[in-house]
């Protein structure tokens, strides 16, 4: 069953069609990757699916229900969360507190109880902190729990965003370049983590530039160019697709493209 279905979606900015009639379907528990050259519209597509932008046309379905144009916080309640290409970390908070915000929807939200610090609020704080620690452990950041996010290294912040998104217990997780700017070791760790998340039943939609990683972990790959769909298929199908090779390295670079695409 497809958990997320995007139909003919699109948006334009000042006459430029950033995303133009793109459609795809993602099956439950899959890792679905979206690739394409810089400026192909991958992040814009994510912003449309996650409610950050309102699509000009087209529809988004989450578990069969039409969720087109719903705001991100409403989509979060319905089980969709995401990370960001450019870090969106709560820098004034510790790693644990960052992930505790991810538990927001699972928390009791009685304002009076919060102001009076009733025992229920204290219990809630303990529960959120405990589950935050579990998620930090899962992404390998257990040692950073009490570290202010502003003092954490870049690679750790990438994983912190994943932990925060996971803490919301999403059905669908959109990861926007989780390995960007990471070294080979960090990239490998993130690849393992993404695989683990999918194996545990969370559907992953991935935007990533590291082709080796994409080809290894993706169940399906969707290729964008200039806001339009270029190809879609399994990693193997996409890798050998002549149009994809052309888009990445030009007509005469098929051999090099084959190497670059893993």
């Amino acid at each position, binding site marked *: 069953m497809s958990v997320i279905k995007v139909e003919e979606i699109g948006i334009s900015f000042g006459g430029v069609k950033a995303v133009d009639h793109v459609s795809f379907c993602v099956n439950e528990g899959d890792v679905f990757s979206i690739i394409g050259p810089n400026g192909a519209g991958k992040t814009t597509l994510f912003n449309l699916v*996650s409610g*950050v932008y309102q699509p000009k046309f087209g529809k988004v379905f989450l578990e069969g229900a039409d969720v087109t144009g719903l*705001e*991100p*916080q409403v*989509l*979060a*309640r319905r089980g969709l*969360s*995401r990370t*960001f290409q450019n870090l*969106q*970390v*709560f*820098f*004034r*908070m510790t790693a644990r*507190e*960052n992930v*505790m*915000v*991810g538990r*927001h*929807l699972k*928390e*009791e*939200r009685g*304002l009076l*109880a*919060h*102001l*009076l*610090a009733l025992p229920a*609020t*204290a219990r*809630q*704080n*303990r529960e*959120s*902190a405990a589950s935050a620690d579990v998620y930090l452990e899962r992404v390998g950041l257990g040692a950073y729990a009490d570290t202010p996010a502003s003092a954490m290294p870049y690679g750790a912040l990438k994983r912190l*965003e994943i932990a*925060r*998104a996971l*803490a*919301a217990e999403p059905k669908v997780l959109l990861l926007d370049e989780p390995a960007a700017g990471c070294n080979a070791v960090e990239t490998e760790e993130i690849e393992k983590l993404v695989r683990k998340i999918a194996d545990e039943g969370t559907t992953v939609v991935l935007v990533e530039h590291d082709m080796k990683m994409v080809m290894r972990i993706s169940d399906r790959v969707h290729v964008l160019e200039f806001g339009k769909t270029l190809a879609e298929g399994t990693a193997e199908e996409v890798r050998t697709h002549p149009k994809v090779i052309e888009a990445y390295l030009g007509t005469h670079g098929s051999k090099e493209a084959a190497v670059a695409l893993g």
Partner: protein
Amino acid sequence: MRKLMSNRLVVPAFLALLVVALAFVMPSNFYFRVAALVWISALAVIGLNLLMGFAGQVSLGHAGFFGLGAYSVAILPAQFGLHPVIALIAGAAGCALLAFVVGRPILRLKGHYLAVATLGFGILVSMVISNEAWLTGGPDGMPVSRLTLFGWRARGADTWYWITGGLMVVGALLAVNLVASPTGRALRALHDSEVAARVVGVDVARYKLIVFVISAIYASVAGSALALVNGFITPDAAGFLHSIQLVTMVVLGGMGSILGSVVGAAVLVVLPQVLTVFHEYEHLMLGFMMMAFMILLRSGIVPSLSTLIAGRRA
């Protein structure tokens, strides 16, 4: 986790001790009066700091709420014979409602635009108070009837010292409770990244409104307290300069620091009193000192000093 819980209460406990300890060293009624003014400003500043320091939303119109609180304990008892305590509560409820109505449209704005919109709100309130002379006495102000509780009349600077000190400590306690709660985390999160807060389910517009309403209640109660202490109130309490003064106290003491709110209020209330020794250079000195504070302790007095001390220890 236990440590975290007890840490939260350190600041209110310290403030309570401070209120009690200072009472023993106050040489005269004048000092009690100045201290009461510090506690009142501190209460308003704690509320404003929740909005500015924690949630990152600026307001240049908070004296508007302060003034409305002040005038409600002046007008409601005089016109409708309400008890001042009921008038204080009614004023706070009215300010909460007003903040809710005004906050909805203007909290969509960000940064400078929000600053200008709140500025406009503050000016609007102070204009109304100045112009509706039949109700408010206009620019000359109006008297406030004395507070009587169960036949006991609150009078004397020391009495008000304790009442305002108590209000301030309660305000600080509620604030630290809020900051350490799920609501507080949502507020601090949207300060750093609204979009990241939204994708994990935080209703950003709702939380901005909540903290705006809470900070308006703090300002209103502080305004009511000032009117009752002084026994007289003028539109200056709601004026633009007072709004700026409150914001300055937040920034000077330290954004996102409850203790800093009290320190910022104390500095800006006490310093002009101390600087009177410079006679005509008083305002010049005040300006210089504020600039020096901001240059030397750029994240505010309390946060800067605590980083400094933490750095020494490490």
